[in-house]
């Protein structure tokens, strides 16, 4: 079978069994190894990607379910610049606040955070923690991740202010 999906804005046609995990399609077939596997059973959130803007754990999504849909991964966050990729405000906030340590949960964490920011929800500490509750981090104690998302939310607010 062949399936069509749009990944980070690029159309792909993937010939693979329909029950192949989206995670494996991304990592092995498309060479997008930024998305990580931590448990393979939907508990850790390391493989979180956005499917039509909604965070999903790609280890539990079969390829057939992504057919015809838009997938966004960590590779789709930074934008192209003349001298190479430019970090998104969310990525920059993680870098400055210390939200990434070992980095293995980071791609999934960023995608959950991106979905939260895009939702326009009020970025209270409680709401942020709830938004990333499905993404386990063993390094940070979450403090600096929450700070980073708050920081990015403030920046995003400024972007949409008049004149921005």
């Amino acid at each position: 079978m062949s399936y069509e999906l749009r990944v980070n804005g690029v159309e792909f046609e993937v010939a693979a069994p329909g029950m192949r995990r989206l995670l494996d399609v991304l990592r092995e077939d498309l060479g997008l190894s930024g998305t990580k596997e931590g448990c393979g059973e939907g508990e850790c959130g390391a493989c979180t990607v956005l499917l039509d803007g909604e965070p999903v754990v790609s280890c539990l999504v079969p390829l057939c379910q992504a057919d015809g849909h838009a997938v966004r991964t960590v590779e789709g966050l930074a934008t192209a610049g003349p001298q190479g990729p430019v970090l998104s405000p969310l990525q920059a906030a993680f870098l400055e606040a210390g939200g990434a340590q070992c980095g293995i949960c980071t791609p999934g964490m960023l995608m959950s955070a991106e979905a939260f920011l895009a939702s326009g929800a009020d970025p209270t500490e409680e709401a942020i923690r709830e938004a990333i509750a499905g993404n386990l981090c063993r390094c940070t104690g979450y403090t600096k991740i929450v700070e980073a998302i708050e920081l990015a939310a403030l920046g995003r607010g400024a972007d949409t202010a008049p004149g921005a």
Partner: protein
Amino acid sequence: MTITTRPGPATPVSPAAPSPVRLPRAGELARGHARGAPLRREGPAKLTGTALYADDLVFPGAWYGATLRSTEPHARLLGIERDADFDWSRVVVVTAEDIPGDNVVSLIIDDQPILVPVGGEIRHQAEPVALLAAADRDTLREAKARLRLRTEPLAPVFDPLVSSQVFAHFDMGKGDIAAGFAAADLVVEGTYRVGHTEQLYIENQAMIAVPREDGGMTVTGSLQCPYYVHKALKRALALDSERAVVIQAETGGGFGGKEEYPSLLAVHAALLAQRIGRPVRMIYGRHEDIAATTKRHPAIVTHRTGVTREGRIVAQEIDLVLDGGAYCTLSPVVLSRATIHAGGPYDVANVRITSRAVATNTPPNGAFRGFGAPQAEFAAEMQVNRVAEALGISPLELRRRNIYREGGVTPTQQVLRESVAAQEVLERAAEAAEFERIRERTARERAARTASARTARGIGLALGWHGAGFTGSGEERMGSVASVELTAEGAIRILAASTEMGQGTKTIFPQLVADELGVPYDAVEIAPQDTSIVPDSGPTVASRTAMVVGGLIIKAARRLRAQVEERTGRPFAESYLHDAQTWGGTREDERFEPYPGVHFDDETYTGDAYPAFGWACAVAEVEVDLDTGEVAVRSVVSADDVGRVIHPVLAEGQVEGGTLQAVGYATIEEIKLHDGRYLNDRLQTYLIPTAVDAPRIDAILVEAPFSGAPHGAKGVGELPMDVGAPAVVAAIHDATGVWIHDLPASPERILAALDGHEPPGPPGISA
């Protein structure tokens, strides 16, 4: 773009260096620094998904490897039988007899085999017996199911208290213990137990072995200690140093769990790769990782404490037993740290501490952040809090009367000459958390509580210490080397085997060297952790990287600077490019020299057990659900003396992360066992705290520098792990009035204590 791909062997993806990543421009949010300190060096790669962890590396033509394990806790291996109906030509199987070198993963003693030989003894449920490799995962899975072990069962031992096999034991103390108890007005006794816990790095263990053209082997993987793996590889494959090469891939967390196990996994991958003559990938799934790799040692600690009416502790008698599991691994060293820290940070005149690490038929236990100290200090702090209750003295005040100060003498007869910050961390944490004020409030709430109350709030405090770096003469024996070079091309490069696993090595090392040389942070490079490139700087463990290896590279940089300035007559920063062009490259290797005035006697086990100690205090606030026994940890204030803060954001990150691991240890993390096997060996059943479970953590960094290190740093990684759990359990007591003696303080244990029932079975013991 449209591409058509097929599953199967992965499409080769070039593991080329990622292109440079830029921060957003001014006005696009970025400040370009982390509170005045440099940004994490490898941060952009991690944030864009271009950092390459072991499983992200593509080696064309690689096969997949798997491990066949025992399923019994104790047995004699009689044979390994292959199903005759299976086509074995598509698979390679390696057993003990195929090992070219010694069949041993050596750490301290040579007891653990790489693979159990036929006729040999199986000593735990997850013991590797045979290795398999195939070109695809399906064939591999099928082949593994077609191998059978023939065994003869032997009687297992699960209870460390009845085990007769002792890996190590200690008996240390000072003063006159009988006289101490004679002088006491009150004697308090208690036994505390903790079970196995899992490091739970989010990246599972992973190794890829690639045969070399020179007949040797290159292994790339997730690891903390390149030279431990190097040593194991050389011995197992009978290779010389040059033909065994170990490279660290980006590593997704370690916490001690990637100190020793990577040696075994690397050898497994290498044996298969050598046999097939092509790369072999061994990437564990979560289930295998939890089932087979090392855990924190369970411990049983018994205290007897004599105290005067005025609150002066005059006698401590402590017995500590660690369950080492089936093989020795690092247990003697874990035991020594546990023993030395067992009394807590208190200057007691009369002390006797006995301890032993014993064997059981469970998978070997090993390094996990704190390395024996969290177990020992949980018991010590429980005991001190119970003494405070028995005396009717505030836990804060009781500590003030007993803590180490400069000139204090430890149980190894170490005189604490400098850098003693017990009081400072105690006062800073207590003040920031408003300990006494909130304690008065929770006492009033407790007194006014009626039977219809549904929740109870409490506050608790714990104090701890953590010996900086290796115990005793470990550092001297290791003789670590680290280097700084000015290349002929004018690059400044650090050469050290210290690994980055999230804690910040790749950021703080260039910081230290840049400061010493007076050049910008970005001008200093760090060489890859590849044994063919960097010297043996020792393992990345024991919170030693910033203090010990950081000290070495500062000294190397200092010598480099002096050389260049002598040749050019100008400041280094202005002249090093010219110096390199004129004179070519200069490399300064710095070997560890014992710190001035620090001596330890291995024979009598007395003297300076550590060059210095770090000090920490945690104050936790909890809310206990009186119906369900569930604990919500609301906040933790942790004050940690790290000697000198090199990077505030990274150091705070260590304190916050260590504190949450301690909260998990206190409340939810527990491996349950049946017949010597871990029952909750997956992430659905072994729980760690989520962002919603995590308290607000307030890290306070305290600086009491150690004069022996050129920069004063004492390390930060393990310190916060020592104090979080006893603070949380003290807070549960403050809320409910019951003491939970065993970790974790699970709802089952709390409800049993509230109802006056027998608690569920002790942690760490197989049913």
